[in-house]
């Protein structure tokens, strides 16, 4: 085997990620599903890595959910995205970082469209100027937030207090990585590793001591698919996709699932609960599920943040088995306490999934 040749080919699968000075745009839905992920991303960049990252409260949806559900026309979407670029330009930034995979795919799609059809870009510039009086420069560097964490994975690992290693057996924890479809399946050159070998999450797991599982349905969609979920009657398609993945990964006994998309952790987490309630089937040992994490939550755990400050108590599949394996201390009594110790109430325990803390 000629390693040099492989290394040269692998160079084509890399992408440039800016080193500093980011303009950050949030996701519409992540703050509801995984409330601390975006906050933790900003905290890691500002307080751990000392990077300049700026977000503007005036930024809006990219309209991706509406666009992919066929209710927002592309022309409108492009103008909305042009406004986000205008906010970036006005703030004096050139490196655009998106929290959402759908947004990232859509920004890539819009920039590619303008690249191939400059007359469309001119028309959108005119629309934006007429509607808002704003002008914009296109970003010099477009990255997804997971790209940025990937870029600084070594620094995070070095500063980390915990590793993806079973504290009892000393063996690496087995992780399933699930990449959002819109990360690199649409524009392979925009993602690390392209569409065939996405490396962004693998790089994090390997750097932080874990082992990645390669299983048959690894590149299968989580099942979100917008219309598959948004129309209730279609949800059977959505849950069937997730079920196919769970059944494919189950024989490899994964300790956790790592994702980089707003929809994927939501569905891989919640559908485990739904399948357990509908069929009585769980995919972990002893009635446990497979904990699902976002890359920010995993980075936060590695850095030793309090799991409840990372919002892990709102996951449908309890994460305590993973915390126990990693040796991360946590207080079960404070799991459902909110800001300033406010009692958030205890959710109803699922019928089949193991619930933590145990009911006394």
């Amino acid at each position, binding site marked *: 085997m000629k390693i040099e040749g492989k290394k040269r080919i692998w160079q084509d699968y890399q992408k440039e990620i800016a080193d500093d000075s980011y303009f950050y745009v949030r996701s519409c839905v992540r703050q509801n599903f995984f409330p601390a992920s975006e906050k933790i991303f900003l905290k890691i960049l500002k307080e751990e890595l000392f990077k300049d990252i700026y977000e503007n409260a005036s930024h809006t949806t990219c309209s991706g959910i509406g666009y992919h559900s066929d209710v927002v026309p592309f022309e409108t979407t492009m103008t909305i995205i042009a406004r986000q670029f205008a906010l970036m330009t006005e703030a004096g930034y050139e490196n655009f970082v998106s929290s959402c995979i759908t947004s990232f795919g859509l920004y890539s799609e819009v920039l590619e469209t303008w690249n191939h059809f400059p007359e469309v870009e001119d028309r959108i510039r005119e629309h934006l100027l007429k509607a808002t009086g704003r002008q914009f420069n296109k970003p010099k560097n477009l990255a997804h937030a997971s790209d940025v964490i990937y870029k600084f994975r070594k620094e995070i690992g070095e500063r980390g207090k915990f590793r993806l290693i079973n504290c009892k057996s000393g063996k690496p924890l087995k992780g399933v990585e699930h990449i959002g479809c819109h990360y690199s399946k649409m524009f392979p050159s925009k993602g690390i590793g392209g569409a065939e070998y996405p490396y962004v999450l693998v790089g994090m797991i390997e750097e932080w001591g874990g082992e990645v599982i390669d299983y048959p349905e690894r590149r299968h969609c989580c099942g979100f698919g917008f219309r598959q979920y948004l129309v*209730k*009657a*279609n*949800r*059977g*398609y959505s*849950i*069937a996709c997730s*079920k*196919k993945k769970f059944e494919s990964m189950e024989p490899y006994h994964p300790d956790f699932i790592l994702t980089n998309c707003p929809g994927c952790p939501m569905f891989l987490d919640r559908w485990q609960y*739904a*399948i357990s*309630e*509908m*069929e*009585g089937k769980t995919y972990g040992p002893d009635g446990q599920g497979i904990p699902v994490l976002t890359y920010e939550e995993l980075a936060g755990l590695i850095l030793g943040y309090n799991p409840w400050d990372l919002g892990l108590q709102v996951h449908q599949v309890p994460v305590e088995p993973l915390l126990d394996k990693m040796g991360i201390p946590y207080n079960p009594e404070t799991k459902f306490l909110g800001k300033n110790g406010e009692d958030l109430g205890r959710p109803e325990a699922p*019928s089949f999934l193991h619930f933590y803390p145990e009911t006394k």
Partner: protein
Amino acid sequence: MKDFGYTINPDRQINYDQNSKEPVYWLETMEPSVNICISCGGCTATCSARQFTDFNIRKVHTLMMRGETHSLKKEIKKCMLCGKCQTVCPRGVNLRNLILSIHKILEFNNL
């Protein structure tokens, strides 16, 4: 079990690792011409049983070759063994013997 207002769609993935290849090996021995079929569908187009039922002899061939034998027993009973399919087959597959052989294999293996 809870009802959320939707169900989990059954999987249509064909898992070749789980399906038994044994019935196909038997069939290849009993009627070797099964392997020269080009799936043109001429047999199905001319089928007498097809006029009155949903019998599809090309589908029977496909399911057999995939090892998906669970619905075949019921399916092949629709054939009247008239042999019109055999007269139009461009490859000369012995379709009547094919059907009879499948019937014997399913009976013998209790499939």
